[in-house]
């Protein structure tokens, strides 16, 4: 035992390797390797009659990604993801600012609970709650009718999907922004005032740039989760004109049993996210993190 510990003490790299190898093995074997296997599946095809995978490499699935309506679906998904990200950022920044810098301790804790509590409820329960709100003669309809504004009837549309996404991903945007804003020292505000800046200038030049890493971190969540989500379009989408990448992949695995095409389509959000992260890094968003 003493010889082992002595050998480890002398060879620092061995100590590091032994500590890192279990999580690294998990990461490589279970996470990366499964992604690689999916990538390889995208190059295979399926016998349409017997549903067996043909293990011959071919590019038909990638060519099929350019057939209508797949490009429109990809475009729609990216657009909705971007709109959801922007909307959530606009809602989250004032909310997180209030939580971090204005609220008293008690109010802040209460707000924390308010933000985190929905995450304890099941995802499905929350989506169904929104269906009840948005459906015909639901809460929204009832309210607008009593206000004399008629019946918006927005269930099963892209707008409804966007609203549900904004709601479900909001905690993921609020928390990183809160973290970024909470870290700003009070002295920054004093210094800014001393230099003659009014509140709006301080907000623009001091607070928002420092909040940006938090917004980027939150946006990674909202953007990537929307790119891959399939349950919300399934439940609150109309099945036509509201399909996103996620539920087209789901349909191809279940109904059509075309695993290779589903794998090829699944690579699209991965590529988009890589592009997004590289762009964010180039804009310097990761400097402060």
């Amino acid at each position: 035992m003493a010889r082992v510990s002595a050998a480890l003490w002398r060879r620092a790299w061995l100590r590091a390797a032994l500590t890192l190898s279990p999580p690294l093995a998990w990461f490589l074997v279970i996470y990366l390797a499964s992604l690689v296997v999916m990538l390889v599946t995208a190059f295979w095809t399926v016998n349409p009659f017997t549903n067996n995978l043909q293990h011959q490499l071919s590019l038909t699935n990638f060519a099929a990604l350019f057939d209508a309506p797949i490009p429109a679906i990809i475009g729609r998904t990216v657009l909705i993801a971007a709109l959801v990200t922007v909307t959530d950022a606009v809602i989250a920044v004032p909310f997180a600012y209030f939580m971090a810098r204005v609220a008293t301790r008690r109010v802040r804790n209460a707000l924390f609970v308010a933000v985190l509590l929905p995450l304890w409820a099941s995802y499905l329960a929350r989506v169904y709650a929104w269906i009840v709100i948005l459906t015909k003669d639901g809460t929204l309809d009832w309210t607008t009718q009593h206000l004399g504004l008629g019946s918006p009837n927005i269930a099963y549309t892209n707008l409804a999907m966007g609203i549900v996404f904004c709601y479900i991903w909001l905690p993921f945007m609020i928390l990183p922004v809160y973290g970024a804003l909470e870290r700003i020292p009070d002295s920054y505000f004093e210094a800014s005032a001393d230099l003659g800046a009014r509140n709006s200038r301080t907000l623009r030049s001091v607070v928002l740039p420092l909040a940006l890493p938090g917004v980027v971190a939150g946006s990674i969540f909202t953007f990537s989760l929307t790119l891959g989500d399939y349950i919300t379009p399934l439940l609150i989408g109309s099945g036509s004109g509201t399909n996103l990448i996620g539920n087209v992949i789901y349909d191809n695995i279940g109904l059509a049993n075309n695993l290779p095409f589903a794998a090829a389509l699944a690579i699209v959000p991965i590529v988009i996210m890589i592009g997004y992260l590289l762009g964010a890094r180039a804009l310097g968003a990761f400097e402060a993190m």
Partner: protein
Amino acid sequence: MNYRRFAQLKSWRAAVILAAALPLAIAGWVSGAAASPGATARPSTPGVLTPPTQGMTPQSSIGKGEGQLNLIAWEGYVQPEWVKPFEQQTKCTVKATYAGSSSEMVSLMANGGGGQYDLVSASGDADLRLIYGGDVKPVNIKLIPSWKQLRPFLQSPAFNTINGVHYGISLQFGPNDLLYSTKVFPKPPTSWSVIYSKKYAGRITIPNNPIQIADAALYLSVHEPKLGITDPYELTQPQFNAAVALLKQQKPLVKAYWDLASSEISLFANGEAVVGAAWPYQTGQLQAEGAKVADTIPSEGATGWADSWLLATKAPHPNCAYMWMKYIDTPEVQAEQAVSYGETPDNSLACPLMNKLAKGSCDSLHANEPDAYFKTIKFWKTPLAQCDNGKDNCVPFQDWVTAWTQITG
């Protein structure tokens, strides 16, 4: 030592690269080594397919139960109500794997069930894929006495009996009927034209399933006879294009395409949809909630689904499988399952037993109709390139799926 130094070590980088390359190498080796799948049906004569397992002789008697039974089933098909008595009688413990779609069933049954599954409750659109894929094997009908009590047109139907060889036994069936709100339609609609009509724009719902193209084809077979559609599942390219065009015309009128029965139930319960294609199951559920709906089969007829229990080629517990097939087609169990799920039993003697379980269920589930009523139902079967008339120019299911994605977008 600090992390940065460690990360600069060439040996570390080499190890990571090797570890990442290893799965790629394995995958490449697998794809190279694995040949095309084995038992695939090859046409011996053009236009004639032979099921690979046709020559297998089924067992001539049911031996001692193996103590377990593994089923692939639709949800609601393996309820404790009839499973518990079966387990007590036969000492075969039932383990059910639920599948959400026919394609899921086909992929679970790949490789003859893989030695894992015994029976699959497949619908007509999956049966032929399983039979011609060699995943199911012939069944000895003489070992299943209740087979004689099945309705004649379900004893040897085209979706589970090929060349006189049975690959399973028929179970239950149901139509894809027209569900409508009795407030909007005081009298039952007489034609499927209501779901293609601008009058109900934004209030129509149909299933999100490529096999719906057959429904459009069925409608056209009556309203555009010059297309010459006789079988909605065997469409030549021009007939197929006409059906797809009709569905594209319908798309702006559809409120939502439902994936789950519960989604359609919500649509009708909230008043979002007033007419649509459904199963008797949804009607039963909605009426139980007090919704003012009813269903009907319009004059053009309807498509339908008929489920069968098929026997896996590599079934590990064949005796328990035969005991289950014997049991599930008896009148009592047929009545229990029909009332519980909301479908029509294949056993012609189940009707009075259904009324004992739920008054009026025999009528609402149409279990006592004469055979002529069911002749109006065109049961699901997998669209193949080989048409029944021997030609090879029908549109295969893969193209149906692609077309459906383009219709719904």
